[in-house]
């Protein structure tokens, strides 16, 4: 039997449910999604009720890594990466110290046994020193397709116990956990030649009457220009309608009345009763009072949109639609120097820039990664910022917000084309795996939603609260006047905004949406709102994004991005203020 503190490496092809198995065996909650490349770093955790550890790594097709994420898996498998993770592919688990593997948990895909056997033979050839436990997942899908598998015969021929799983339903997980605990030291691996693999497949697998299911037919239709493109347009419109409509309905119909009519008056009355008039009371309930704006901005204004966006994203991810959208948009994204696969990190960037930067590891070249992160840093607003824009333009004519988003789109296109032309490097051809269309599981959707909402509360709302407290203190101490005077030539002279707009420009360095939210408290002409929104959109990325850029690429690149965004944001917004001022002010 293996040591009680054995470390298992979870290995297999992409998108066959390895992270679902990892979550089920360890009780951890790492992100799962129905597309190849969802896992871009490794996660390490202890098995439930056992001292053994399990490491989840990105899926691989073979030992020929096509991107940074796959290289990480190959390196871990070869034992070349133990100890702290290198900067280029750092683990996002808190315990970012990869333990040397003492065993392999090889996952086969019941729907694609041929490739699983081939990969298994390669892995055995590469690491004959490690014991291997075999599991076969997605048996429900195989059954749905009429695939008949003789698992007992397969296990016998492979010379190892084989654990059947339907991991997303939790079936077979308990038996697999017991199997890992009882696993024995390695014996001589039984390597199957190509010929033997094909003979084995013919023996253990039969598919007498396979017919395309309605999901297969839908999946095939969605990836073709007709009817895929009109349907993509429909999905886009419905997505916007859902995110904006639901977010606004909850905000305007429920949360803001709750805040304005009940919460704010009670908080103010309580603080006035508790504290005498003075600085502390003003910091808590003054113009930028942390107990008022600290609740209103992150929770009443932004959270409804965060909720609706992440629910939609989870639905799109788990259905298998995103990879199809990537295929449809491939030709268009080529103009920006990206392949279709870039659409997934770009959409993730609409939620938050950090997962988008991490997800760029699945892109095949450094040039594509650089183009993608530059687009994310410059001109892809995160959902918090989008929510702030919605609030900012809420009382303005529709043309203002439409004009703004048209300008954003134009900037993305121009910037992409420019970067494609100037950045060195060869453009890599497209290779996107198209996953099966699946019916999203309610429990998985809720788990993902909670995971991301928790991330927003921890990394978005909480820092926002601290920064609002700082802003309130600066405002109440009268420091804003000095800052405003110092920044007057830029804010008033160039951007034609009021003096107090200096405050959000400073706060925006820490959280991007705080460049926008304080503008709500000022009485601005729509041209000023437009100018402020432009500054906010192209302004420096949040501190957390800058740190991620430095870790993933280099400090030099992170600082260059800060400088470039600053210059670009102020130049463009100043020019827009002048141009619009001529016609509309």
């Amino acid at each position, binding site marked *: 039997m293996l040591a009680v503190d054995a470390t298992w490496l979870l290995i297999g092809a992409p998108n066959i449910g390895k992270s679902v198995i990892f979550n089920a065996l360890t009780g951890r909650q790492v992100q799962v999604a129905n597309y190849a490349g969802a896992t871009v770093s490794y996660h390490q955790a202890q098995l439930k009720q056992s001292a053994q550890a399990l490491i989840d790594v990105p899926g691989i097709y073979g030992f020929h890594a096509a991107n940074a994420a796959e290289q990480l898996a190959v390196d871990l498998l070869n034992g070349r990466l133990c100890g702290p993770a290198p900067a280029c592919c750092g683990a996002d688990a808190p315990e970012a110290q990869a333990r040397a593997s003492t065993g392999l948990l090889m996952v086969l895909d019941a*729907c694609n046994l041929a490739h699983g056997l081939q990969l298994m033979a390669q892995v055995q050839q590469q690491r004959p020193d490690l014991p291997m436990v075999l599991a076969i997942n997605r048996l429900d899908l195989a059954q749905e397709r009429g695939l008949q598998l003789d698992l007992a015969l397969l296990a016998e021929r492979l010379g190892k116990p084989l654990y059947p799983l339907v991991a997303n339903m939790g079936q077979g997980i308990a038996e697999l956990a017991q199997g890992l605990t009882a696993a024995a030291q390695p014996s001589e691996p039984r390597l199957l030649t190509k010929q033997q693999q094909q003979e084995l497949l013919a023996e253990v697998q039969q598919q007498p009457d396979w017919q395309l299911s309605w999901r297969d037919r839908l999946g095939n239709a969605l990836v073709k220009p007709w009817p895929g493109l009109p349907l993509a347009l429909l999905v886009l419109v419905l997505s916007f309608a859902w995110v904006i409509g639901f977010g606004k309905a909850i905000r305007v119909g429920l949360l803001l009345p709750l805040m304005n009519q009940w919460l704010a008056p009670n908080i103010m009355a309580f603080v006035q009763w508790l504290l005498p008039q003075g600085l502390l009371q003003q910091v808590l309930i003054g113009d930028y009072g942390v107990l008022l704006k600290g609740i209103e901005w992150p929770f009443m204004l932004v959270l409804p949109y965060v909720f609706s966006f992440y629910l939609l994203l989870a639905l799109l991810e788990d259905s298998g639609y995103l990879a199809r959208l990537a295929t449809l948009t*491939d030709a268009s994204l080529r103009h920006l120097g990206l392949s279709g696969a870039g659409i997934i990190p770009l959409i993730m960037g609409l939620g938050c820039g950090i997962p988008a930067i991490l997800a760029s590891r699945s892109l095949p070249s450094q040039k594509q990664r650089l183009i993608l992160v530059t687009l994310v840093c410059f001109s892809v607003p995160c959902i918090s910022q989008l929510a702030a824009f919605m609030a900012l333009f809420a009382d303005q004519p529709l043309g203002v917000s439409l004009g703004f988003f048209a300008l954003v789109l134009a900037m993305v296109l121009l910037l992409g084309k420019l970067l494609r032309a100037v950045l060195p490097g060869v453009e890599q051809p497209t290779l*996107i795996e198209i996953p099966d269309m699946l019916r999203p599981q309610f429990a998985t959707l809720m788990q993902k939603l909670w995971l991301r909402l928790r991330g927003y509360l921890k990394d978005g709302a909480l820092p926002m609260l601290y920064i609002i407290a700082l802003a309130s203190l600066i405002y109440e101490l009268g420091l804003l006047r000095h800052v405003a005077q110092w920044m007057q030539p830029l804010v008033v002279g160039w951007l034609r905004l009021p003096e107090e707009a200096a405050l959000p420009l400073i706060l925006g360095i820490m959280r991007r949406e705080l460049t926008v939210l304080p503008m709500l408290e000022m009485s601005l002409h729509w041209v000023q709102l437009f100018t402020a929104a432009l500054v906010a959109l192209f302004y420096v990325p949040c501190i957390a994004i800058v740190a991620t850029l430095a870790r993933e690429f280099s400090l030099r690149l992170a600082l260059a991005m800060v400088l470039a965004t600053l210059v670009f944001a102020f130049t463009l917004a100043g020019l827009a203020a002048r141009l619009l001022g001529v016609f509309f002010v």
Partner: protein
Amino acid sequence: MHPINQFRANQWLVLADQPSQPMLLDLGMHQGLRLRYLGKQLGRGPYMVQWQGRTLAVDASLLQDLRFTALSNELELGYAGR
């Protein structure tokens, strides 16, 4: 000529422009590389092929690239023909 050799001889586009049979045109087996043409995409967009039971969207250039053959595991670790 075997379909896969037509493809290797850069005649892939002839196959790709057959709108009457956009689905399931089997290109056969060649060194373990099983491709099944599922229909050409937008203008210069990727092609849909099946490889090792998986559906992939790939550029025509990649299909002619050695790297794609390497992805089929044939060239790795001297494994072929063992």
